[in-house]
């Protein structure tokens, strides 16, 4: 009788070990923005779950779209995407619904992030597609020495006074939104067919006024310093502000009166997520104290478990919405960035 019990115990032990050994070989392929998965944060997760995390960084929404949609999302398990961009992934069936119960740490989030149905775009037909992670508005960073009065409008980017002193972001969708804001169009996210030439010209004008376009936060800081820039559009918001301050640059931060575009980045799982359990653990882990602190203190980004010292609730914020056509914006932006003139840019 005792022998039988021993056998049962042995088998039970082996069965317990089995999933562990399988998990030890688990690989989680993460697609994220710079600062979202710092090496120390990743290492802690790897040790805890005996897994291997492969992080790929993206620096623009277009880049992310290309990487995820390539091969029908087969190359990644989880990715961090803003709520507006998320919509096209859902429409194309590139993401899978998330089992929120597998992410216990959502209970640590501030109430407004727990009420996912109140955040536009997260819940479709009762299914949750993403878990909020961080957010920021995209204001204007300016050099206090060169710009004595804080810029109050997004049009400052077009101001001839700052020609060759403006650093802008290399991203099609946001650039068109900014141009629409600067032209006072009713919505930065819905460009009417007649408005395209106007916006293209506006962006060519922007190109002619800027010193350089950046993609990553680090690059933006380097350009801002090397070019002695006066003004920079902060696509990464407080993250860039923090980096510049850390680099010893005397900068200010302004929210334009048109309203600062703002993004809420969330973790989503691709349709081909290999190990949803591991992906869920990753998302849950990032809602813990340590990763939250890294986000807040090192990256200068808000987290969803504590109030943000960076985010100004009183300022005018325009949360990103899905654009009428991200593909079109990116295509035209590519031409504008390469230096084409309006006629060429607007060619079909």
């Amino acid at each position, binding site marked *: 009788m005792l022998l039988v019990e021993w056998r049962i115990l042995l088998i039970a032990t082996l069965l317990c070990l089995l999933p562990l050994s399988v998990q030890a070989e688990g690989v989680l392929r993460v*697609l994220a923005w710079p600062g979202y998965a710092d090496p120390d944060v990743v290492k802690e997760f790897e040790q805890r779950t005996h897994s291997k995390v*492969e*992080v*790929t*960084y*993206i*620096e623009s929404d277009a*880049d992310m779209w290309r*990487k995820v949609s390539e091969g029908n999302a087969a190359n990644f398990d989880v990715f961090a995407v803003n709520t507006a961009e998320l919509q096209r992934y859902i429409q194309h069936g590139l993401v899978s619904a998330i089992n929120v119960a597998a992410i216990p740490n959502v209970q640590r989030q501030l109430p407004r992030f727990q009420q996912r149905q109140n955040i536009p775009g997260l819940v479709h037909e009762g299914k949750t597609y993403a878990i909020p992670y961080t957010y920021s508005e995209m204001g204007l960073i300016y050099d206090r020495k060169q710009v004595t009065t804080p810029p109050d409008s997004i049009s400052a980017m077009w101001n001839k006074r700052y020609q*060759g002193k403006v650093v802008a972001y290399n991203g099609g969708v946001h650039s068109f939104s900014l141009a629409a804001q600067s032209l006072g169009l009713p919505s930065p996210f819905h460009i009417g067919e007649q408005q395209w030439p106007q916006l293209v010209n506006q962006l*060519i004008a922007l*190109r*002619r006024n*800027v*010193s*350089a*376009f950046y993609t990553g936060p680090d690059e933006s800081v380097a350009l801002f310093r*090397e*070019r002695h820039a006066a003004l920079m559009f902060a696509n990464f918001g407080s993250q860039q502000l923090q980096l510049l301050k850390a680099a010893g640059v005397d900068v200010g931060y302004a929210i334009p009166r048109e309203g600062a575009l703002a993004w809420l980045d969330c973790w989503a799982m691709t349709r081909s997520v290999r190990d949803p359990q591991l992906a869920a653990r990753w998302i849950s882990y990032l809602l813990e104290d340590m990763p939250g602190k890294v986000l807040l203190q090192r990256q200068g980004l808000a987290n969803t478990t504590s109030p943000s010292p960076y985010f100004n609730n009183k300022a005018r914020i325009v949360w990103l919405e899905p654009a009428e056509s991200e593909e079109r914006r990116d295509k035209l932006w*590519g*031409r504008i*960035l*390469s*230096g*084409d*003139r309006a*006629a*060429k840019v607007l060619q079909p």
Partner: protein
Amino acid sequence: MRYGIAVKLALLLAAVGICASALTGAYSYWLSRNLLVESSQKSLVASTQVLGRRVDTSLEEVARNLQVLSSHPSVRRTLQQPNAEMNAQLAELFELMMKANPAYFQIRLITAANFGLEQVRVDRQGGTFIKVADDDLQEKGHFSYVSETLQLPAGAIYMSRIAINHERGAYTGAEQPTMQLATPVRSAKGEALGVVVINLDVDGLFNLLATDLPNDFRLFLANGQGDILIHPDRSKTFGFDRGQRVLLQDEFPPTRELVEGVVNQVVFQQPTTDGLVQPVVMALVRLPVKLHSEEGQLFVGLAKPLASVKEGARHLGTLIMVSVLGFSVLGLLVALLLARLALRPLRQLIDAANLFAHGQPVGVLPTARQDEIGELARSFQHMHLQIGEQLSSLHASQEQLKQMAQYDALTELPNRRMLQDRLEVAITRAKRQGGCASVLFIDLDNFKEINDGWGHDAGDAVLVAVAQRLRRAVRATDTVARLGGDEFVVLLDGPDTERDTDLIANKLIECLAPGIPFQGGTLRIAASIGISMFPRHGVTASQLLMAADRAMYLVKARGRGGVGFAMLQD
């Protein structure tokens, strides 16, 4: 001798020799192999440095071409006053230059006015050249190679970072690893009019530079931060462009010091890793960028398969192995010779001992040697002498014992035992030759009286004198023995007749007749003799003795003195 000390010594000597030779071989192999690897590493470093200088030279050549173009009078003129004809001529010139330089993707003249609008642009498209014109010309003022170059003094060269060219409208150079080199065009007053830009095909340039390197060499290039730009495995290159930085210092940890600026060159062995199909020796050198550049420095490297280095070491190993074997055989022969030489005196001693054991003269010993063998020889000689002396004395004692066992101590005549032996010999001989032997048993008649009357000294003197006289009275071949007391036996070899025997017996009686002088007087003595003859009176020694004894008693019983024969046997 098969497992003799000589063989053992020879084997020992040979083993020591072979060990020493093998150790020396192994050590020199290790040393030479390291030297070989070291020299191969040095030569690889040298090749890498040469490659680095070639890169420098190539960049300088591009710079010279840029300077030639920027100082061309037409360039300045068309920038100040755009002129279609002049632009066309410049396009021809650009095309010629691109034909001569296969690593040029593109040459452009860009004006500082109009937001960096391209004025003349020639693109490579496979084997042909495309002169881009009109609407296809683009504004490049927001690119560093324009905005930064415009800040430079005349003649200075700007070099961009090496990146994948994502600018639209490029031809062969689109989405290719590219770097831009540019120089400003300035008016006589120093006003920046525009820039001349050459887009360089980075892969093409480096492949050209590496053409005369051996086929199994592999080329590496990394930028100042260590981002890998050229690697045999293309998936390792331009990782930053795909969002996954692949750094030299992560792929090849020994390069960390190089990238961090601690050293200017590194050389190391790299085992097979992903991206490298075989272990290699790798050298990387820092290449400071002398041009105006955000890059600051580059790292160029070469790798060659470790197998090619090891091939030399293997050859060396074979050579050393053969030498070791050769020297071992030589060592074995020398060891045998030495062992023989060393053991020759020992052999002498062994021979001497053998001779000595057989009682033969020992011959010459190596006693003059001053070593252990000399000492052994001297000890042996000493022992030999001592044993010799002891043996002689032993022989003497043995002789004495033998004498005592076979002779009568007083008269020195053979005793009963010897008589018995001689009698048996005589019987044997007589049997064989059909001859005769006679036993004469003699008893002194009045010996008891002399002994009692004159003392034992007189008795002894009588016995000795009787013995001498009997001895003198017979032939040397005859035996005179004393049986004990006053009994003597004479064994005669030969007489065939009783008459002859009787004569001899009477002669014996007569020789005693004169008496024996003793202390000035004369002791009168007489004898009774009983005679037995072989084979008449017996055929064995005891029969003959008993018969003679009985005959002697019969004579004694008849009265004093006389001779009597034994009775014939039944």
